[in-house]
């Protein structure tokens, strides 16, 4: 009768494989994403090897470029641009795009290979400290000299420029001007927090009569919470760092402007149609649709939303504008938008000399040639290079208009956030609890998550 036990064991082992199949759910859902790089790899490598050298005279150096792209939405544009470059110069350019949210995993894996990326993305100071050994000092390179200023350059501890921002983005409060005038206001009525609050409170009070509310839902689901734990939090962080003259990652923060943060957050959760107790499940898509379908006048997000709002939701670009996030700080009438970047090119210093030179040449071509600058203008809103072409993104234009009117730009202070995902998760937990029950005690927990969380994560990050 031992056979029966054996049969059972066999059943169980089959069972295990089945369960393993369930576990495979994770990889299955990611499959379409991970397939993308594989497909592009095959797509770009094969023709490059067979066609390119035959048509044009091969360059003397003979290096090749491997660009590990950070922005999935720009993948196709990069592939096309790489093909054009190969046709013109004969230099092989391989573009691989990491799936959304997996860049650091992909980069780690690719860097371990013998044919490692020659150009890759570094997002912030933390990324630079992880990859400093692999980042070329850009001083004196042709591409570095094309930058307009140092605002979007990442410097390492010795002050050497290691990563060069190739596009910058701006965020603020997106306004539907058509609805705003329907409610009897214009953009000129909003100059600071008090006037923003007056307008929003009034619209919220008349919401049922107007058919729309002031703010779209401030969802705290994972697909939306970064707008607040990341972007909105930039406002108090920026002012604090400006006051204290902080220019590198601080070990601790004081939370000096958290009262102002509370002002604006209270406004978001009060003057909205959303139920503040169910924000934990309210998604970014819901909030976007609310604004896109004309149910809300204000929507906090960035210039990358332009394509979606004018495309998917067919909004008229003339109805759209982006205003600064006002929260009650002195002098904020002169505020501009929050502009910065997480998109910086770094060149792999451990690549061969030919490949490094080929990579620099390629990037130089991208920011100076007609094809390259056109592509950059189409894909991104702000391009910090001398030969940049203007893009049609109205939010990007707003950012420039504020800057040229002499308003100060809120730089991306959140790029200093230590162990950023973890810090934000703690802030989101506290914000969610506060929104459901807005008491002073619950706000204390937000402050604790902000300030103590920063100190804690700083130690973790450097642990």
């Amino acid at each position, binding site marked *: 009768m031992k056979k*029966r036990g054996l049969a059972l*064991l066999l*059943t169980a082992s089959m069972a295990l494989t089945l369960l393993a199949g369930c576990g495979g759910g994770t990889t299955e859902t990611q499959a379409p994403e991970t397939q993308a790089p594989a497909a592009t790899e095959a797509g770009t490598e094969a023709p490059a090897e067979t066609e390119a050298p035959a048509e044009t005279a091969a360059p003397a150096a003979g290096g090749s470029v491997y660009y590990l792209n950070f922005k999935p939405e720009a993948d196709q544009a990069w592939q096309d641009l790489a093909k054009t470059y190969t046709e013109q110069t004969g230099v092989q350019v391989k573009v691989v795009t990491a799936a959304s949210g997996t860049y*650091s995993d992909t980069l780690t894996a690719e860097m371990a290979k013998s044919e490692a990326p020659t150009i890759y993305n570094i997002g912030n100071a933390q990324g630079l400290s992880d990859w400093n050994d692999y980042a070329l000092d850009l001083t004196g390179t042709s591409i570095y000299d094309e930058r307009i200023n140092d605002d979007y350059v990442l410097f390492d501890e010795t002050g050497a420029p290691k990563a060069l921002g190739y596009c910058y983005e701006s965020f603020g409060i997106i306004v539907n001007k058509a609805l705003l005038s329907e409610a009897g206001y214009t953009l000129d009525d909003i100059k600071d927090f008090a006037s923003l609050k007056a307008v929003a409170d009034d619209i919220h009070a008349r919401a049922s009569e107007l058919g729309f509310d002031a703010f779209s839902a401030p969802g705290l689901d*994972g697909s939306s919470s970064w707008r607040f734990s990341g972007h909105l939090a930039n406002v108090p962080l920026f002012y604090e760092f400006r006051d204290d003259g902080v220019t590198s990652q601080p070990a601790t923060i004081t939370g000096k402007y958290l009262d102002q943060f509370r002002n604006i957050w209270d406004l978001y959760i009060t003057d909205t149609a959303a139920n503040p107790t169910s924000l934990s499940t309210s998604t970014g898509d819901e909030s976007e649709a609310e604004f896109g379908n004309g149910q809300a006048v204000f929507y906090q997000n960035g210039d990358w939303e332009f394509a979606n709002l004018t495309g998917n939701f067919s909004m008229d670009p003339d109805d759209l504008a982006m205003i600064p996030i006002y929260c009650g700080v002195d002098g904020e009438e002169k505020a501009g938008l929050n502009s910065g970047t997480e998109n910086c090119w770094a060149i792999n210093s451990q690549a061969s000399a030919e490949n490094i030179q080929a990579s620099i040449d390629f990037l130089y071509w991208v920011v100076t040639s007609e094809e390259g600058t056109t592509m950059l203008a189409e894909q991104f809103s702000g391009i910090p290079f001398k030969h940049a072409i203007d893009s049609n993104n109205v939010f990007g234009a707003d950012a420039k208009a504020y800057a040229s009117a002499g308003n100060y730009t809120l730089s991306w202070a959140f790029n200093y956030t230590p162990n950023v995902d*973890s810090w934000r*998760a703690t802030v989101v937990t506290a914000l969610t609890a506060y929104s459901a029950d807005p008491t002073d005690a619950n706000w204390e927990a937000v402050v604790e998550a902000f300030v103590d969380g920063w100190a804690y994560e700083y130690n973790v990050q450097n642990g």
Partner: protein
Amino acid sequence: MKKKKKTHDAAAVNGLLVRRPIRRWFPLFILPTFVCFIIGFVWPFIQGIYLSFCNFNTPKDASWVGFANYVKAFSDTGFIHAFTNTASFAVVSILTINVIAFLIAYALTQKMAGANLFRTVFFMPNLIGGVVLGYIWSMIFDAILKGYNTYLTANATYGFWGLVILVAWQQIGYMMIIYIAGFQAVPGDMLEAAKIDGATGWQTLTRVIIPNIMPSITICTFLTLTNSFKMFDQNLALTGGAPNIMFNGAKVNMTELLALNIYNTYNINAKWHGAAQAKAVVFFLLVAVLAIAQLTATRSKEVQQ
């Protein structure tokens, strides 16, 4: 039945002519699988253990640091918290899953209409992947909790019991199938003998049925134990470790289990890759020791039929 006469046909499937070359050449035949096993399992496993003693960003640039990573792993309050979380989750889910699966299997082996239909229905949740289940159940729980003006990640209790319910729902059907197989293997003559001897239903269950289905119990507890410890997808999708709370200057992800903690540790930054690897080695040892202990314990109670 007429007994077959033993033949000595050398060309039969078990004949010498067939067996000898297999005996001689078996290394050649197992070679492909063996090579795959080495590449896909043994080598990464050994490298993983080696890396737990190193600082590394990519496996290429590993530098030896001795036991520093293990010290770091154990001084992490989040790891200790995840450990106690996992232990209590394992105890609760092993009990719920096995008790309920056993009862359902018992019910469905009685003569009743639609037993097959019920078996199929109870088994079905098992066919859905963990991540999908996690998201679906988080919506279900949130929809229910919304009625009470609260939400799933509001506190650790909701998250913990939510995970228990989810995993029970998913795995009960599976364990039920194994228990049903066990019930069907209980010899009819034993049950008949018990009946003739005047055993009550309870006596039949505890003295005849349970000893006979001990192999099923062994397997089911083994599976639920290892599944609970290795729980990852459902944990990630249901709460992702939230609520994340600052507590006396240290941070705790209240509903984070061990596997998710290791994953999150690795993703902090390059300085933590080694510590995450060390945690993973500790985790492996823990699961291996527990599983072997449990197997030995329940095996000893199995009876030979």
